[in-house]
C-alpha cells in the first residue's frame, strides 16, 4: 500500500516509521524546513509512555534518553514557592524529537520531502494522512464537521536559559491584572517559558500593540525576580490564541486526520504531542487488522472517546486559567490544591497517592482553618469532607449535606450527613407543587428532634411553586392536575405548553406571599429547624422574578428583578435568626436567559441582605433549558459564585463519591456538598 502523509510533525513522522515497519510505502511531505521550530520543548505530563516503547523500541530509547524528567510542580504565588511532588513529567526539545523521528523514518526507507507546499489535488495514495496540524490545509477539502475556535487566554511561547527542576507555575499580579507562567525544562540548557494572561489584561498592558522585542522585554522585566540573570529567548514568539480543533468525523474516503489536524487539547494539560503520537499508533495498528476502510473506522472508534476525555479536561484547565485571578485570595495550600485539581483528572485521592505530605498538610490546614486553630507541625486531620463548617452562627459537624424526602431525613442524618435538608416544602397550600407536597405546618417538631438526636442539623427548604404548582404527584413532574388551583408567577407565562397559565402577581399577592414566607419562617423556628433554605431556583415563584425569560413586567418589579425576592429575603431574615440559605439559579442555561455573571450578581445581593450560604443551582427556569449533565456539572458554577461573589456555597450536581466531595471542598469550589451516594449491594453484605 502507498501512504501519503502530509505534514512532518511528530504524528506524521511517527506514523511513517510504524507503517514502514509493516512494509508499506510511505512518503511524507512537509512545507517547512526539517529543523524549523515552532515553540521550544514539548512536555509529556502524567503519562507513562509504554505505548511508544511497544510501538517502536529504538525511537523510544532515543527519545527517553533525551528526556528531561522531573517529578515536582513549583507554584510561585504571593511571593512564595510551594512545591508538590510525586508527579510524572518529561519533556524534549521539539527539534530534537523531530530529528530522531526523521532519522528513523529515513533509515526505514520512508521518503521525506521538505520545503514543499501541498495542494490537496496533488496528493494521492491508497491512504492519505492529513498530519498537517491545527490549520490543516488538507482538512478543508472535505466536510469533516470541523470547527476551530479560540480557547482560553492569550499566550506566548518563549525559551529561557534558566534550567528549571520542576514544572513551574508563576502567578504575578500587576497593575494591569494577573499574568501566569507555565514553564518546564526540556534539556540541560533550556526551559520552555509560556506567559499567559486574559485578553483584557493583555490589552491594558498594551501588549496588543507592542512589537515582538518590546513584548519580550516586558515579560523579561515582569519575571525578573524568577528569571534572575537568565534571559528569555524568542522564536517567532508572538502572542497567540489557542485554537480548539474538533472534527465530527476523522476520515473521509481514504483521507484520515491525525494529531492536531484531528483535535487539539489546550497546552496547559501538556498532552498534545502524546495524543498525536498515540493517534499514529492506533492508526498503524488498525491498518494491520484489516482493510483501509475498516481500519479508519476502528481508528476513529478507538481514539475519539480518548480524545474527548482529554479535550474535556483541557477545556476545564483552559477555563481555570481564564479565571484564576478570582482565586488570589485563597490561602497558598488551597490555591495549590485548586490548581492541581483544575482539569478534573487529579482528585484529592490521586493527590494523596502522589504526594501524601501535600495532602496531610492540606487536610490539616483545612481542619485548622475550619476550627480557627493554628496549623501545627506534624498535624493530622480527617479529609476535608469531615471538617466542621461554621456558618451563619451555627456549626455543621461536616461538609456532607443530604436532601431527602421527609420520611428519610432521620436515616440520612444517622448515615453521617452534617446537615439534612427537606425536599420542597410549601409556605402555604397554594404554593404546593402537587397535592402531596408537604406544607410547613405545626407538625414538624418531632422529626426535627429526631434528627437532632443523631448530632446532625436539619434545614427546611421553603418555597412557593409559582407556575410549577398544581401538578400531579406521580408519573413525571410538571404534568398539570385535572382540577388544580390558581397559580401565580412574575408574569402570565405557563411553564410547559400544557401547564396552567399563572396570574401575574399583584401588589396584594406579593404582600400575602411575603407574609406566608414570614409566617412559615416563624413556624420553622418554632419547630426547631437549624437552617432555612429559601427556594429562589428552578423556576419556582421567587425565581420567576429573577430571569428575563419569566419576568416580562414593566413595573418596578420588572425593571428591578430583585425587588420582590429581596423583600421576601429581608422579611424572612428579620423573622429567622438561624442559618439562612438561598437556593439560587446561578444561570438559566437557556437562550436569552440569566447569565452566570448576573447569577453571581444576584448571589452578591443576597449575601448583602444577610443570606449566609448560597445553594448553587442552574437551569429549569424554563422547561426548555439545556443542562450539560455530567458528574459535578454544577461545580464550576459554585466555584465562580463562591470565589467571585465571596459567599459560602453548597453544591450538588450528582456528586456520588467521597473523593468528589473532598476534591470540591479542599479546592475551595464549595463549602458544602449535596451528596448522592450510589446504592450498592455491598451495603446489604455489610449490614
Amino acid at each position: 500500500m502507498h501512504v501519503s502523509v502530509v505534514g512532518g510533525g511528530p504524528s506524521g513522522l511517527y506514523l511513517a516509521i510504524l507503517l514502514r515497519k509493516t512494509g508499506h510505502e510511505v512518503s511524507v511531505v512537509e512545507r517547512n524546513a526539517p529543523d524549523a521550530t515552532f515553540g521550544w520543548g514539548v512536555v509529556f505530563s502524567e503519562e507513562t509512555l509504554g505505548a511508544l516503547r511497544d510501538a517502536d523500541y529504538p525511537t523510544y530509547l532515543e527519545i527517553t534518553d533525551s528526556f528531561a524528567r522531573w517529578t515536582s510542580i513549583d507554584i510561585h504565588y504571593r511571593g512564595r514557592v510551594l512545591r508538590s511532588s510525586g508527579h510524572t513529567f518529561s519533556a524534549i526539545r521539539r527539534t530534537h524529537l523531530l530529528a530522531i523521528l526523521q532519522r528513523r523514518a529515513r533509515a526505514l526507507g520512508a521518503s521525506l520531502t521538505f520545503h514543499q507546499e501541498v495542494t490537496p489535488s496533488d496528493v494521492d495514495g491508497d491512504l492519505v494522512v492529513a498530519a498537517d496540524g491545527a490549520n490543516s490545509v488538507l482538512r478543508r477539502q472535505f466536510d469533516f464537521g470541523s470547527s476551530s475556535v479560540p480557547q482560553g487566554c492569550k499566550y506566548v511561547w518563549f525559551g529561557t536559559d534558566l534550567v528549571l527542576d520542576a514544572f513551574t507555575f508563576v502567578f504575578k499580579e500587576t497593575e494591569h491584572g494577573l499574568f501566569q507562567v507555565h514553564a518546564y525544562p526540556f534539556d540541560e540548557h533550556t526551559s520552555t517559558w509560556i506567559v499567559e494572561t486574559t485578553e483584557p489584561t493583555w490589552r491594558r498592558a498594551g501588549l496588543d500593540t507592542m512589537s515582538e522585542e518590546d513584548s519580550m522585554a516586558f515579560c523579561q522585566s515582569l519575571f525578573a525576580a524568577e528569571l534572575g540573570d537568565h534571559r528569555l529567548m524568542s522564536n517567532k514568539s508572538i502572542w497567540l490564541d489557542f485554537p480548539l480543533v474538533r472534527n465530527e468525523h476523522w476520515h473521509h474516503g481514504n483521507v484520515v486526520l491525525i494529531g492536531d489536524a484531528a483535535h487539539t487539547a489546550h497546552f496547559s494539560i501538556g498532552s498534545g504531542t502524546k495524543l498525536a503520537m498515540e493517534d499514529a499508533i492506533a492508526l498503524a495498528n488498525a491498518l494491520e487488522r484489516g482493510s483501509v476502510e475498516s481500519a479508519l473506522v476502528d481508528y476513529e472508534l478507538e481514539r475519539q472517546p480518548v480524545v474527548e476525555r482529554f479535550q474535556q479536561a483541557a477545556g476545564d484547565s483552559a477555563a481555570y486559567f481564564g479565571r484564576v485571578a478570582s482565586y488570589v485570595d485563597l490561602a497558598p495550600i488551597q490555591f495549590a490544591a485548586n490548581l492541581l485539581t483544575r482539569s478534573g483528572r487529579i482528585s484529592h485521592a490521586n493527590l494523596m497517592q502522589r504526594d501524601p505530605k501535600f495532602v496531610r498538610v492540606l487536610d490539616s490546614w483545612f481542619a485548622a482553618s475550619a476550627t480557627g486553630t493554628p496549623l501545627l507541625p506534624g498535624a493530622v486531620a480527617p479529609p476535608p469532607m469531615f471538617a466542621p463548617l461554621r456558618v451563619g452562627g451555627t456549626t455543621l459537624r461536616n461538609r456532607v449535606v443530604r436532601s431527602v424526602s421527609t420520611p428519610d431525613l432521620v436515616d440520612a442524618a444517622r448515615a453521617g450527613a452534617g446537615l439534612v435538608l427537606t425536599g420542597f416544602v410549601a409556605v402555604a397550600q397554594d404554593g404546593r407543587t402537587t397535592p402531596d407536597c408537604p406544607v410547613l405546618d405545626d407538625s414538624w417538631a418531632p422529626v426535627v428532634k429526631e434528627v437532632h438526636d443523631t448530632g446532625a442539623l436539619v434545614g427546611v427548604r421553603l418555597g412557593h411553586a409559582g407556575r410549577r404548582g398544581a401538578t400531579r404527584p406521580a408519573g413525571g413532574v410538571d404534568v398539570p392536575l385535572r382540577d388544580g388551583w390558581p397559580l401565580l408567577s412574575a408574569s402570565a407565562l405557563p411553564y410547559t405548553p400544557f401547564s396552567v397559565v399563572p396570574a401575574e402577581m399583584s401588589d396584594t399577592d406579593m404582600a400575602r406571599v411575603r407574609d406566608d414566607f414570614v409566617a412559615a419562617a416563624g413556624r420553622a423556628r418554632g419547630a426547631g429547624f437549624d437552617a432555612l433554605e429559601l427556594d429562589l431556583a428552578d423556576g419556582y415563584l421567587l425565581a420567576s422574578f429573577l430571569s428575563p425569560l419569566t419576568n416580562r413586567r414593566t413595573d418596578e418589579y420588572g425593571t428591578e428583578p430583585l425587588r420582590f425576592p429581596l423583600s421576601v429575603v429581608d422579611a424572612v431574615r428579620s423573622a429567622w435568626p438561624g442559618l439562612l440559605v438561598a437556593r439560587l439559579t446561578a444561570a438559566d442555561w437557556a437562550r436569552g436567559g440569566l447569565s452566570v455573571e448576573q447569577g453571581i450578581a444576584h448571589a452578591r445581593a443576597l449575601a448583602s441582605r444577610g443570606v449566609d450560604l448560597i445553594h448553587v443551582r442552574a437551569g429549569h427556569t424554563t422547561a426548555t433549558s439545556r443542562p450539560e449533565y455530567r458528574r459535578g456539572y454544577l461545580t464550576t458554577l459554585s466555584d465562580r459564585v463562591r470565589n467571585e461573589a465571596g459567599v459560602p456555597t453548597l453544591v450538588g450536581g450528582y456528586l456520588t463519591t467521597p473523593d468528589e466531595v473532598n476534591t470540591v471542598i479542599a479546592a475551595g469550589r464549595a463549602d458544602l456538598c449535596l451528596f448522592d451516594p450510589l446504592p450498592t449491594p455491598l451495603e446489604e453484605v455489610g449490614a
Partner: protein
Amino acid sequence: MKVGVGLPNTLPGVSGEVLVEWARRADAGPFGTLGVLDRLVYDSIEPFAALSAAAAVTSRVRLATNIAIGPLRSPAMLAKHALSVDALSDGRFTLGVGVGARRDDYEAAGVAHGRRGAVLSEQLAYLRGTLDDSGVGPARPPIELLVGGSSGAALTRMARYGDGYAHGGGPPRAFASAATKARAAWRDLERPGEPRLWGQGYFAFGDPDRGSAYLVDYYAFTGPFAEKIAAGNLTSARAVRDFVRGYEAEGCDELILYPTVASLDDLDRLAEAVS
C-alpha cells in the same frame, strides 16, 4: 439485567411468517422483551403493527418500541397505538419514544423537523396528562414510558416525563456515560428512585457481512458514522456475552439485541448465547 431481542421489523423484505415465528420463539426463549425500531422512509414494518402481530402469538414476553419516533404521529394517534398494543398484549407493552435522527422521515410525515424536540415534549405531556380526559381509549393502567436522546434537553425531557431512559446503542462505556447523565438528570428533576435504563446492540452470527451491510445501509444517512455502528455488530456468542456483561456492570436494566439478518438460526444461537 434482563436481555431482550429485537423483532426483525426494519430488515428489508422480512416476511410476516418469519416475524411471527420470531416472536413465538422469543416468547419461548430466555428473552425479557421483544423490541422494535421505527423508520418511515425505509423498507420496514410499522413498529406498532409488528408488535400487534407479536402480541397475538406470545403470552409472556414483554413488547417495546425502542424507540418509536414520536413526533411522526399526532399525540392522540401515538396514544391510540400504544394503548391498543398494551390492550392486545394484556399489559405487556413498554412505550419508548425519541425524536429519531432522520430528516426525510419528518418530510414524509409532513412534520416540521425543526420543532421535533418541542413536539416530543408536547406528546409526553399529553400521554402523562391530557390523554386521561381525551376519550381516546382503550383505557389502560399507566404504560411504562421510556425516552431517548443524548442532549441536555432530551435528558431533561426524559427525567420530566419518563419512567426511564432508552439509550441509542454503542459499546458499554458509551452506555455508562449516558447512564450517568440520565441518573444526574433524574436527580436534577428530583424524581424519586432511579430511572429505568435500557440499552441496545446489534448481532448477526450466520452471515455477519450481510448484517453489517444492512447497518451501513440503515444508517447511511449518518454519513461516516454508519461504518462505526456496523463495526459494533456482535458476530459471535463470545462478543454477545462480553457485551451483555459490560452492560450489566454499568447498571443497565434491560438490554435489547437487534438482529441485522432476519435469520431464525441467528435467533436460536442468540438464545443459546444469553441463556
